């Protein structure tokens, strides 16, 4: 007897499923559920913009309100992807403008976004609400002006670490006086001064404003004005936090901060003058997130603030915090979930600050909820890593970067295999790992054996042979993103694990030992993988099959070769006449 829930009931049940993973699973149950689910899916996340083309997406999911796309590989953040590689969003915007006229949200990461794209966005979606551009480039303040002028219902404009060509500061003034819906504005990455009066008016009439992240150019003297206009702020980023200390500036600032009863997140603090830091003391106990990574100030000043941040969950700092500052964090920030410590002077071999592995060990001891770590340091030991793993088996993200490549355990001079091995063995929920220091194939054996939940792995200057890579590809069941640079991994491991590559989003290998011949073979064997060799040398056509490629980026796709490859990118092993599959 065929029976099922009426459509309305199914749709209602599905509406509780937020995660894409769950919705994907639901759509595989049966044809009815597939049909139901596709009609009511509202949000789409495409982790690799070249894995699928927009027409396929629009055909399957006609009612989408929110699209998120990622473009360039992660190592593009560190200049390993040459200019012009791709990741241009314009073709997507064209299709989405046609297919989703009621689209409300666009989130892009590591994509090339032109002014043309921004103008098209601003004119195509009448109910457009959210634009988040993360690590994007290719646009200017003209594009921002178009968004400001045309998006009448905009709620979020978030430019996270974008590279913007700044032609003028006037873009902000393009928000019409009738525009009052702004909830979140992040312009921290811009350097030009925007008109302060336009900013003040915008803030004043945006009664729902919750997030305001200013750029460096907004002087400290003006902060109290803005805070007074928006005491409801939850997330605030200052501009340059410096000026000659004046008591009237200080007291207005302190008073303004104390009026922000809902403030939970602080950032900014460029060029900080320590005498102004106490102005934030009144909000410290409210803070759940604090980013002081632009505050080039000493440990004692940092400790004084952190000692009061009892509810802090996320902390981003420079290594100026030193081990002593991290001891304070360990004692005072018992709710800490995420710790990020950036290096202040990454290119100097000698330590300029007293930050060692001890600081991290200390936090791992004191902060029982610590889940996510990104830690740059100059020395590490196996014993420290083992302690950390035993203290915090609940770690989900562990990224440890020892500044000197191939640095051994500084106490024993041994490789750090055992230390990182301990991390993967004890931290059973680990989904992201970045390693550094001296590492042999042994650490990869540990990873392949234990890191069953590992989703993303970053490796540099590590390993001895293909066996290392083979351990990872054959053992890490959940692995979806693997990025490798300067490791002696080559053809054997790749060709022995070809089907694994189709279960992953992508694999990046640069300055390794992968040959042109192997790339060709892989591309021929696996029609649903794009094996893109990135090589800027001339005469690529006459290069020997056994020569090593500079870089290779392998990703699964249902779209065939991409049509926008520059001349230094080749898709290997595919017939030249294969065209971009638009149907």
């Amino acid at each position: 007897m065929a029976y099922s829930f009426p459509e309305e009931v199914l749709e209602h049940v599905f509406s509780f499923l937020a995660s894409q993973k769950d919705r994907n699973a639901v759509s595989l149950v049966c044809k009815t559920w597939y049909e139901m689910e596709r009609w009511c899916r509202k949000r789409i996340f495409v982790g690799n913009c070249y894995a699928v083309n927009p027409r396929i997406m629009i055909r399957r999911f006609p009612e989408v309100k929110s699209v998120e796309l990622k473009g360039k590989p992660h190592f593009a953040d560190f200049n390993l992807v040459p200019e012009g590689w791709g990741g241009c969003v314009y073709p997507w915007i064209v299709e989405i403008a046609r297919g989703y006229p009621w689209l409300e949200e666009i989130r892009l990461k590591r994509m090339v976004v032109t002014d043309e794209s921004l103008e098209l966005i601003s004119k195509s979606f009448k109910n457009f609400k959210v634009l988040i551009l993360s690590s994007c480039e290719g646009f200017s303040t003209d594009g921002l002006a178009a968004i400001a002028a045309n998006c009448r219902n905009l709620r979020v404009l978030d430019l996270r670490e974008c590279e913007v060509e700044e032609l003028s500061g006037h873009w902000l003034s393009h928000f019409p006086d009738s525009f009052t819906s702004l909830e979140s504005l992040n312009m921290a990455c811009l350097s030009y001064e925007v008109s302060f009066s336009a900013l003040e008016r915008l803030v004043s009439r945006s009664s729902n404003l919750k997030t305001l992240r200013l750029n460096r150019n907004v002087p400290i003297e003006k902060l109290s004005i803005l805070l007074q206009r928006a005491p409801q702020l939850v997330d605030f980023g200052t501009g340059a936090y410096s000026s000659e200390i004046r008591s009237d500036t200080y007291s207005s600032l302190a008073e303004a901060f104390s009026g922000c009863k809902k403030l939970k997140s602080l950032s900014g603090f460029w060029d900080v003058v320590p005498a102004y830091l106490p102005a934030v003391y009144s909000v410290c106990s409210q803070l759940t997130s604090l980013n002081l990574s632009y505050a080039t100030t000493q440990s004692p000043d940092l400790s004084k603030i952190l000692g009061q941040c009892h509810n802090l969950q996320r902390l981003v700092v420079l290594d100026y915090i030193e081990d002593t500052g991290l001891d304070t964090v360990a004692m005072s920030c018992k709710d800490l979930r995420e710790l990020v410590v950036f290096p202040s002077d990454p290119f100097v071999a000698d330590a300029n600050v007293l930050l060692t592995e001890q600081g991290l060990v200390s936090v791992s001891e004191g902060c029982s909820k610590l889940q996510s770590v990104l830690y740059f340091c100059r020395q590490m030991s196996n014993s420290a890593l083992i302690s950390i793993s035993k203290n915090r088996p609940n770690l989900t993200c562990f990224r440890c970067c020892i500044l000197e490549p191939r640095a051994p355990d500084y106490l024993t001079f041994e490789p750090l295999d055992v230390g990182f091995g301990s991390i993967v063995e004890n931290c059973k929920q680990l989904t992201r790992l970045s390693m550094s220091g001296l590492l042999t194939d042994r650490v990869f054996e540990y990873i392949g054996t234990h890191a069953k939940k590992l989703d993303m792995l970053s490796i540099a200057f590590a390993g001895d042979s293909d066996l290392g890579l083979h351990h990872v590809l054959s053992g890490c069941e959940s692995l979806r993103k693997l990025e490798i640079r300067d490791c002696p991994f080559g053809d054997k491991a790749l060709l022995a694990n070809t089907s694994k590559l189709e279960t992953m989003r992508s694999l990046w290998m640069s300055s390794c030992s992968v040959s042109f011949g192997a790339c060709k073979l892989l591309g021929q064997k696996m029609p649903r993988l794009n094996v893109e060799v990135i090589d800027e040398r001339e005469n690529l056509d006459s290069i020997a099959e056994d020569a090593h490629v500079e870089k290779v980026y392998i990703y699964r796709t249902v779209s065939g070769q991409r049509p926008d490859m520059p001349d230094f990118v080749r898709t290997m092993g595919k017939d030249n006449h294969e065209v971009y599959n638009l149907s």
Partner: protein
Amino acid sequence: MASETSCFTTEPPTAPAAAAGGLNFNDTELTLRLPGESRKSGAKRRFSGVTDLKLGENDRSDTECSGVTESPSSKEQVVGWPPVRSHRKNMTKRDCKYVKVAVDGAPYLRKVDLEFYSGYQQLLCAFEDLFSCFTIINVTGDVLNERKLMDPVNGMEYVPTYEDKDGDWMLVGDVPWKMFVESCKRIRLMKNSEAINGSGINHRQLYLFT
């Protein structure tokens, strides 16, 4: 340490990453850099004074300039390592260097933080802001030390000069910016008539210092 090149045995080094490998750099390795160009700050990494001087018409080739070695405490840089985004690359503390600025005829002095500016042009703009009677004029247009400040009300020209560590009064603009910041003790905007007539400094005499 020597075995790290095993990655690259079949290939001549191509990318900078291949060449550097991050290790085995020779402390005395010569580097080719433009004079005065330094990615770092801090006394231990300064180049020697020779390469920092602009020597006018003399055409020093790069190889001569590269006779300066880098201090052993700095690293040979591997592309993309360490993995920090470019806007985080140098977060060393910004030092303050406040110097007095006097203008002939003004009743009080001002102070500027030289570390706040990245070049002469910004500094002159700051003077324009501080002493709002001034505008910058270019006499010949290209050579910096021909730029002067002018008071359009009375037509007086002012020449920016500074006292250096040796106590000598110098014309602003001759030496590379960073060298100027390091050696400047205070600044005086001198009336041009004084400068030319010799009660201040003599342009001709100035070139003897360089």
